[in-house]
């Protein structure tokens, strides 16, 4: 956007060598109009019939005087651009920029305190300048670096800074009045237009809904019989699902019995004496001379059995043991 403004002469960069710079410290931060600047600070100019640009940063007032007649609404001094960029890069210093002339900038405490040009670089003059502002750091910038600094400074120029360098004073009251004067009819028209668009859009949606409703009702009548059957089917399915969830909670006792019989291998000396299955609780009495743990492990492997406990184990006169197992079954819905 800045390039566009520059290209179409909305912004003019005021050359360093065409300005006379002067810096002041204000008692407090104030907003200065073009007229105020002229009345108060034109006296600092070395020439007559001169233009002035001011920029206030905190309490620091920077003034640029120039003779050229510039019609652009925004005028940005080159020394300001260079100062911003060089301060960002190197802080406080005395900068000597080599171009067609020598451009000298002195930045102290973060502010531009002096900016001037000279044809010949005089060491004594530089020494006086640096002594005057107590600046010990001197930085030389060659022509290539100068161009790069300038480009970079222009790129980083903010909208706020551009606004601060504008050359026309905006009277908000007048602007509001003008806007109202010229904007009343267009604004009214715009509002009416928006309402109209909104109304048409709403009506079109409404008519679309009506059309879809008609379609839906026609289709519903056509599908009435099958829809009723589907609803009945869904109701029946739900009813039977509830029945299953209520009545068939655990594995069928006969399946349990069948699987318990299978834990005894054909040639093993073991007999089931008593099996009782009551919902999830299963009690099992087994007569054997083998280790109770063998059957415990086999029972544990049955997928629907949750826990198996050896409730007791006692030895009979014939040497066989009677082992009582207590088993808890998993609910069917967990399987």
């Amino acid at each position, binding site marked *: 956007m800045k390039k566009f403004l520059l290209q179409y002469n909305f912004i003019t960069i005021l050359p360093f060598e065409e300005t006379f710079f002067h810096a002041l410290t204000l008692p407090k931060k104030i907003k200065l109009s073009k007229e105020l600047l002229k009345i108060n600070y034109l006296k600092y100019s070395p020439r007559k019939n001169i233009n002035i640009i001011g920029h206030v940063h905190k309490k620091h007032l920077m003034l640029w005087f120039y003779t050229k007649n510039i019609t652009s609404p925004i005028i940005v001094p080159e020394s300001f651009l260079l100062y911003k960029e060089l301060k960002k890069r190197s802080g406080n210093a005395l900068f000597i920029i080599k171009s067609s002339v020598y451009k000298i900038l002195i930045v102290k405490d973060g502010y531009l305190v002096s900016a001037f040009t000279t044809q010949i670089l005089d060491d004594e003059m530089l020494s006086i300048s640096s002594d005057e502002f107590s600046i010990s750091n001197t930085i030389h910038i060659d022509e290539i670096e100068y161009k790069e600094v300038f480009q970079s400074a222009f790129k980083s120029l903010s909208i706020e800074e551009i606004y601060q360098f504008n050359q026309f004073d905006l009277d908000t009251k007048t602007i509001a009045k003008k806007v109202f004067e010229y904007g*009343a009819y267009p*604004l*009214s028209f715009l509002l009416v237009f928006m309402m109209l668009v909104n109304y048409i859009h*709403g009506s079109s949606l409404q008519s679309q809904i009506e059309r879809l409703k008609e379609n*839906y009702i026609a289709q519903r009548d056509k599908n009435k019989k099958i829809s009723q059957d589907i609803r009945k089917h869904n109701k029946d399915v739900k009813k039977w699902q509830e029945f299953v969830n209520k009545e068939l909670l655990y594995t069928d006792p*006969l399946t349990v*019995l069948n699987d318990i019989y299978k834990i005894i291998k054909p040639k093993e000396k073991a007999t*089931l004496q*008593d099996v009782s299955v009551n919902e999830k609780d299963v009690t099992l009495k087994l007569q054997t001379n083998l280790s109770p743990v063998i059957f415990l492990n086999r029972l544990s492997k049955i997928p629907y059995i949750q826990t198996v406990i050896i409730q007791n184990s006692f030895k009979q006169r014939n040497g066989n043991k009677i082992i009582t197992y207590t088993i808890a079954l998993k609910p069917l819905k967990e399987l």
Partner: protein
Amino acid sequence: MDVKKVFILLTVLVICINYTNYFQQDSEKLYRTIENLKMKIAQGKEIQKRKIQKEELQVGADKLVFDGTKLSYSEAMGKLQDIITKSTQKSCTLTKIQWAQTPSTNLWYDRLRMNVSLQCTPKDLFSFINRLKENNKLFVINNLRVLRMRNKEKLYVKMQVMAYRKNR
């Protein structure tokens, strides 16, 4: 300032605000309604496209329970007893059959409970169950107890056979 312009602008503003507050339709709501209707129409089309036969929608589970319109509770219990008795023939010895208490439920079905005691071999026990299942009704076995009989190669089996009757 032109009073006429101000008046026109204010009038339009008042109309605009009132229109927005009281007459403007909620387009979000209208869009939602359109979406819902489109979805319902699509579902309807899908139903028409699939050409669902009535038979597909029959659950067919009703035949698993006794029909309450044809059989009273007592008749259904009698039928159950008959089925159990017939199923034990040629396999087990039915030593006891007893009707359990008449249930009172608010459900759409009655539980028909029959306490049964049998004497049979393990193989015959499963023959009995298989013959019971041939009746195409749902039988649920509860409180099963199987004891090995002394000095006999038979089992003493106690169980509660439960069937269901649709009451509405």
